[in-house]
């Protein structure tokens, strides 16, 4: 599992039959910033993931990649390799709450 920020949505009409009705989100992976541990920094790579939880742009989410992504409910026959599995409330690192960001 990894943390990511939702940076957008993706819409496709022509797609695999099994993908019909599935919401697609554009995610930017988030990493703990080693230079400044109480912060999250953007990781490399943009990921598209399916979402059944209702996450929206700007939110921080947990996502799974690889074949374990398909273990999420009802995805066994869908060709997905990334799924949003949680909407993050808080993240704490070394007793610093780093999400949501402190003012």
């Amino acid at each position, binding site marked *: 599992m990894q943390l990511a920020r939702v*940076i*957008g*949505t*993706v*819409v*496709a*009409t*022509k*797609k*695999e039959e099994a*993908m019909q009705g599935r919401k*697609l989100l*554009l995610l*930017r992976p988030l990493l703990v910033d080693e230079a400044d541990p109480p912060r999250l920094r953007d990781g*490399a*790579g*943009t*990921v*598209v*993931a399916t979402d059944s939880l209702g996450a929206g742009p700007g939110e921080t989410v947990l996502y799974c990649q690889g*074949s374990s*992504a*398909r273990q999420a409910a009802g995805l066994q*026959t*869908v*060709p*997905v*390799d*990334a799924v949003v599995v949680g909407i993050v409330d808080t993240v704490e690192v070394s007793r610093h709450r780093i999400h949501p960001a402190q003012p």
Partner: protein
Amino acid sequence: MILARVDGMVVSTVSHPSLRGCRTVICQPLDEAGRAEGAPILALDPHSAGQHQRVLVSTDGAATRRLVGDPRSPLRNSVIAVLDETS
């Protein structure tokens, strides 16, 4: 899955039998602004995406093996959607 742009197509005569019957395209991964991001990858394309079209590529090997109908296929990437828009 990743966003990608179709940059070309690959034709191979001597290849694994599971590669026959489905075209292979060169896909350049893109970021949210449509800029190239990372090295291009090859993917099977059952949707006949055109040159420079934006597509969604899945690296789900099980789905790709199902697509080619060969449980022992070494293929992994496939185009699963042709994009209308991203925002």
